């Protein structure tokens, strides 16, 4: 294979995807609007920092765009492969273009969340958003190459995203999901509650594995029998095998390490929710806004957990060792704030019951 020719075909595939995508104006508007809706509506409803909601919105938008870019091009891909493209050239062209566009979207959304939510982990947030893009694009491409029709693909994406929304970041299930490690990084940006290395490794591992799945599935789906030569066209078995092993190792590494870390420090967003549920009404009566929370891992009397800090210096400790998250005021000033709230409404502390 002539590398220059292959490169020009990859470029043509990327250009084709770019032109197709750029003419879907409504779809582009929705791709931008969806993460904003996820982020702002969730923020408005429970007052949290909701970086996770913004990140999941971006991943959903990007994954769906990649899925439909693959599905819509199926008929033409078959002919292009027959005429001389390699399936992987089409895939790489699409991957590169979608990745560039997704990184722009993720960076813009990350910047917005930095300004609005002001999380302590600025770099963690931007890194997490970048990794959301890096993982969501191959996820959409892999699903698009594997499923027979649009419905199955979209249900698969909804299922993955729904699982993430419904479970805390510390859940082992979330850790095993393709975008789970990115979710943990987003939580880390707000609460500093997950180790950086394993989560980054997990993201990269999943991105690599999903890319390989997409390559294999599209190669299989678009296979053309070359009657005239019969020569084997797949001579990259060893590199592919090594890449597969590396990606699996990167995914398993965080599962074997960060799970313990997550269990010992509690889930950042879940801890914040515990504060809101237990003390939210009291804090409102005391005039403490519930937005812009930060969290740090901590230990009290030998019990691991997370300290949630709210505006006006209100701090709460949420132990992670109990099956049900409970939040307690962590300092005398916070206890005074709560007492002030209770003096105005004695029942306000019963919000969690």
């Amino acid at each position, binding site marked *: 294979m002539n590398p220059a020719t292959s490169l020009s075909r990859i470029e043509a595939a990327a250009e084709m995807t770019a032109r197709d995508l750029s003419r879907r104006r409504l779809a582009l508007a929705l791709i931008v609007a969806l993460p904003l809706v996820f982020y702002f509506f969730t923020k408005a409803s429970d007052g949290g920092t909701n970086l996770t909601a913004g990140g999941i919105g971006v991943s959903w938008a990007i994954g769906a765009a990649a899925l439909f870019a693959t599905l819509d091009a199926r008929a033409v891909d078959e*002919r292009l492969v027959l005429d001389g493209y390699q399936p992987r050239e089409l895939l790489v062209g699409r991957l590169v273009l979608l990745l560039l566009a997704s990184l722009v979207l993720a960076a813009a959304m990350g910047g917005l969340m930095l300004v609005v939510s002001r999380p302590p982990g600025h770099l963690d947030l931007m890194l997490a958003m970048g990794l959301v893009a890096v993982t969501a694009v191959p996820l959409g491409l892999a699903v698009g190459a594997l499923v027979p029709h649009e419905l199955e693909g979209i249900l698969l994406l909804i299922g993955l995203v729904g699982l993430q929304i419904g479970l805390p970041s510390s859940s082992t299930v979330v850790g095993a999901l393709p975008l789970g490690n990115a979710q943990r990084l987003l939580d880390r940006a707000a609460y500093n509650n997950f180790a950086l290395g394993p989560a980054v490794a997990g993201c990269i591992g999943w991105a690599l594995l999903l890319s390989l799945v997409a390559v294999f599935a599209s190669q299989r789906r678009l296979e053309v029998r070359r009657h005239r030569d019969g020569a084997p066209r797949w001579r990259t078995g060893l590199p592919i095998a090594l890449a597969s092993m590396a990606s699996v190792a990167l995914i398993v590494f965080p599962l074997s390490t960060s799970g313990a870390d997550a269990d010992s420090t509690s889930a950042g967003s879940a801890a914040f929710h515990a504060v809101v549920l237990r003390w939210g009404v009291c804090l409102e009566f005391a005039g403490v806004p519930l937005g812009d929370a930060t969290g740090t891992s901590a230990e009290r009397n030998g019990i691991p957990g997370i300290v949630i800090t709210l505006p006006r210096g209100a701090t709460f400790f949420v132990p992670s060792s109990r099956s049900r998250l409970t939040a307690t005021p962590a300092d005398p000033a916070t206890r005074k704030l709560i007492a002030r709230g209770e003096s105005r409404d004695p029942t306000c502390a019963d919000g969690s019951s």
Partner: protein
Amino acid sequence: MDVVTLEAVTKRFGSRPVLNGIDLGVAAGEAVAIIGENGAGKSTLLRICAGLIHPSSGTVAVQGRVGYCPQSAGLMDLLRADEHLVVFGRALGLTKERALVEGHALLAELGFRDGTQQVRHLSGGNRQKLNLVLALLGDRTVLLLDEPYQGFDHGAYVNFWDHVAGWRSAGKAVIVVTHLLTELDRVDTVVELFPEEP
């Protein structure tokens, strides 16, 4: 010498037989029409020749570059006709300029002159003309055309069979799937397929 050779080709989809023991040889400069009722396996046979479907058994040999025109146009709705020419031309090693010049010439022969419109805005006939031209682009040895004239107006339809004669004279092997029996005198061989009994 045959550039397309099929020997004892069979194809089953699950337990349903579609083709059974097909032998076919098509030489350069020969035009073959494949006819048969719906479900007889005409399109399947063409896709096997193209390499898009594997036969269940039998051997297929095709020499040279294949141009395949599917029954339903495999096009991108939001791309312009010209952009299709460039993308397909790249597969064939053509530069952008060469693909456009060659593609425009082929489209003009079929009476389609505006390559700047997006495919979604084209009429059914013009979509089909673009579909056909993409199969002709570059130097093809074998043309596999699956009812390529669908949506053509009468003039373009007659013109199409003139083109078949021209491609045959140019030394190409042409296999056309057709339902229309009035033009069968314009091909060298007619192969009729019958639905297989399950």
